[in-house]
């Protein structure tokens, strides 16, 4: 019989989201709390992101990933927040029972007043991409290669092609080059890259690595180890165009084809998941459909900037502290909330619900479904415009944030808030 430990707040994950949430909750006076982390150290994915560019919004300086993480870890230590590493959470139940296992403590069961889900996300694997060809060695997700090179000191290969031009793929093109590999090409199925311009210039152009837009991998060759791949141009329906094949001899293929929130534990707890974000459906407090269970960071929706993750997670931590103090959720009556909807050109707005008397300003976060130039993002409440933000460009690669002031929300009624794109040119 395993005895159950009672605790006020359990945070699952000690990456930037979990650390910020725990810091905020502790600062709000929650002293009975514990952070559980699967890896041997806190810091999450930042540990392997050794490049710089993190923290420009939050600290007004460019830090490397380990440096950014170290600041939150130092603050957590200062606040004496217990972080247990090497601990894998096995299950979370709707009544907030959590089971976990670690070499040090074995199997344990907790009963928490509130839980913050901060498990982050995973890379889309080869199986989900349906690339044809053999199942040989030498094919890795870009993040796996990043871990090998930056944390474990192994080089995964010598001649490399990268499929997908997201930021992780671009960053790895430069890392592999600097560590002595030859990166032959970066291949992107879309007609544009979802990576930052800065990364295209400084990770590809600087090293003369060609970027093939509207191209994809159509053959993988090799019996034991990867020997080569074929890349083909695709038409506007993303179908390969016969005759456009380019062959590359390479021993390594890195996949940088999108991130998916890691919600197996959330689903076990009965948390409602949005098909658009692949993360929990939340209110402005980041409370999920299960009372007392909150979600923040990349497990909720995939972010581009860690600064946004931290900002969101501080709010989730404060909201969880308020929940613990009052032992109740916000209003559940549908008359007391606005439902947030995606309008034309908008995908995956978070939060999906806003209570009619929020305790502070509410950030609406979303991605445009295409590139919009010289356009506006418009927020309407039951068809009446309440906010407009103009920009030279909105792109799917950059999450847009619109802040709804509490003072504005307090004057509104109605039942539905909608975000949509207006004007400007768009391309798919």
């Amino acid at each position: 019989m395993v005895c159950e430990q009672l605790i006020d707040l359990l945070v699952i994950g000690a990456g930037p989201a979990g650390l910020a949430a725990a810091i905020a909750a502790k600062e709000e006076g929650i002293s009975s709390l514990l952070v559980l982390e699967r890896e041997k150290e806190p810091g999450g994915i930042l540990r392997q992101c050794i490049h710089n560019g993190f923290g420009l919004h939050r600290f007004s300086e460019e830090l490397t990933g380990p440096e950014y993480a170290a600041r939150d870890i130092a603050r957590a230590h200062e606040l004496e927040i217990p972080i247990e590493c090497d601990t894998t959470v096995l299950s979370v139940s709707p009544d907030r029972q959590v089971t976990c296992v670690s070499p040090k403590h074995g199997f344990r069961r907790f009963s928490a007043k509130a839980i913050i889900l901060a498990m982050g996300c995973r890379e889309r694997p080869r199986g989900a991409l349906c690339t044809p060809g053999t199942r040989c060695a030498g094919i890795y997700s870009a993040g796996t290669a990043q871990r090998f090179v930056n944390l474990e000191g192994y080089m995964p290969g010598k001649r490399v092609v990268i499929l997908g031009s997201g930021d992780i793929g671009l960053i790895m093109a430069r890392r592999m080059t600097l560590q002595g590999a030859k990166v032959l090409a970066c291949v992107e199925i879309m007609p544009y890259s979802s990576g930052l311009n800065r990364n295209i210039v400084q990770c590809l152009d600087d090293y003369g690595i060609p970027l093939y837009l509207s191209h994809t991998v159509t053959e993988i060759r090799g019996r034991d180890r990867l020997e080569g791949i074929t890349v083909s141009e695709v038409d506007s329906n993303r179908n390969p165009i016969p005759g456009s094949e380019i062959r590359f001899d390479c021993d390594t293929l890195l996949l940088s084809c999108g991130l998916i929130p890691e919600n197996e534990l959330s689903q076990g707890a009965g948390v409602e998941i949005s098909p658009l974000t692949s993360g929990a459906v939340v209110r402005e407090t980041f409370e999920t459909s299960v009372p007392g269970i909150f979600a923040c960071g990349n497990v909720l929706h995939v972010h581009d900037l860690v600064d946004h993750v931290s900002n969101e997670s501080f709010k989730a931590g404060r909201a969880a502290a308020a929940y613990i103090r009052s032992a109740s959720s916000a209003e559940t009556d549908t008359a007391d909330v606005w439902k947030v909807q995606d309008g034309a050109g908008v995908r995956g707005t978070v939060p999906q619900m806003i209570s009619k008397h929020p305790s502070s300003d509410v950030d609406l976060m979303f991605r445009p479904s295409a590139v919009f130039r010289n356009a506006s993002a418009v927020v309407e409440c039951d068809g009446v415009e309440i906010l407009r933000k103009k920009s030279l460009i909105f792109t799917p690669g950059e999450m847009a944030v619109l802040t709804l002031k509490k003072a504005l929300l307090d004057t509104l009624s109605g039942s539905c808030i909608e975000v949509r794109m207006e004007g400007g040119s768009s391309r798919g």
Partner: protein
Amino acid sequence: MDKVITCINCPVGCRMTVTLSDHGEFVSVTGNTCPRGAKYAEQECTLPLRMITAVLPVAGSDTPLSVKTSSPVPKEMIAEIMEELSRVSISTPISAGQVILPNILNTGADLVATRSLL
């Protein structure tokens, strides 16, 4: 002589055309939307600079040490600097912020540890 470069300051990514003199000196730029673009174009055509981050193997540690240059260094020196880094030999303990290699190849930039290895 004209040269086309992409601005990296924001997601707009202006394609800018820079006019260079016969000696390769910056003369003027068109295609930028804001002053940041013009400044970047001039810097990029005069003395392009880059931060370098890398990992170094460490005696006594399974985990390599992540490092950075304390300030941006000339882009054309990246390969040379990486070569210099490959000759560095270090062992634990190392604390974050520690200077691993001062004034790398007289660039004025130090090589600094970005994590601790105890």
